[in-house]
């Protein structure tokens, strides 16, 4: 039973991070595309656009980080193993 739980945890950890990276990846690409278009349209507000872009990227990144936290807790702090 222990090895099944371990195997399942490892698969779950891999899936957690892998799937969690899809959505924010698409979102961040879309945000960056619109930011670049904004800069191209009005180059003098590049500083503000860059600041807003970085802030938004960090928000989206945190969604992937949630998946990573789940994966880490499955690997290193698993309540069902041992």
């Amino acid at each position, binding site marked *: 039973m222990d090895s099944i739980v371990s195997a399942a945890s490892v698969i779950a950890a891999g899936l957690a991070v892998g799937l969690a990276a899809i959505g924010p990846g698409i979102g961040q690409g879309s945000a960056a595309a619109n930011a670049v278009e904004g800069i191209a349209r009005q180059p003098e507000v590049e500083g503000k656009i860059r600041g807003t872009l*970085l*802030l938004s990227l*960090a*928000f989206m*990144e*945190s969604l992937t*980080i*949630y998946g*990573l*936290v789940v994966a*880490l807790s499955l*690997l*290193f*702090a698993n309540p069902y*193993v*041992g």
Partner: protein
Amino acid sequence: MYQNSLIDFNPYNSLSAVEVGKHLYWKIGSLQLHGQVFIVSWLVIATLLTLSFLGTRNLQRIPEKFQNFMEFILEFLQDIAKNQIGEHEYRPWVPYIATLFLFILGCNWAGALIPWKLIHLPEGELAAPTNDINTTVALSLLTSLAYFYAGLSKKGLGYFARYIQPTPVLLPINILEDFTKPLSLSFRLFGNVLADELVVSVFTLLIPILIPLPVMILGLFASSIQALIFSTLSAAYIGEAMEGHGEE
């Protein structure tokens, strides 16, 4: 347990290893504290206090070099609070927002830049205090407390009318928000710092020369952004609690 299999594959297992979750425990009565978090936190607090003290001695109308630098930082922090909370009410909250930003930035950068390996602890190792979920949860609960206090002190018990605006159908979502706000704040900061430390340590385990450097620089950048995000979001929650729905 998985660390053992990593050590078996690694021919250099006498030189390096990765471990997660080992702490230096201090016992006070029946409570256990994570000693390594306290040690680095005290160091960061002492550094911040020393810098503030040195920056405010001999204040002059036209600031000199160090005072100028401190005023630049202060303006930056005041800007964060002013943009989120609003022109009229941001002044009392600048100390809290500024302390959050400086403490989190200090912790993250101290964990990444200072060679802690030189100090050998009996168990666990010194690293950024924010790589411990307890630290980040404590900071986000402080923010929770802060925005409750802001709302209650400004509107009294009328603050709770906020839960049924704009429509009462959103009541469960608004209540849930009170739990997800500190949860997301804490997990964002904790996940970023721990993930950066783990990536750097695994890279160092595999290829100790030169390759971990870009990842460490990325970690410095990402952790400073996270400090900014934490303080900006805290200010945004405080501003949102103090103002009515739909005002700007």
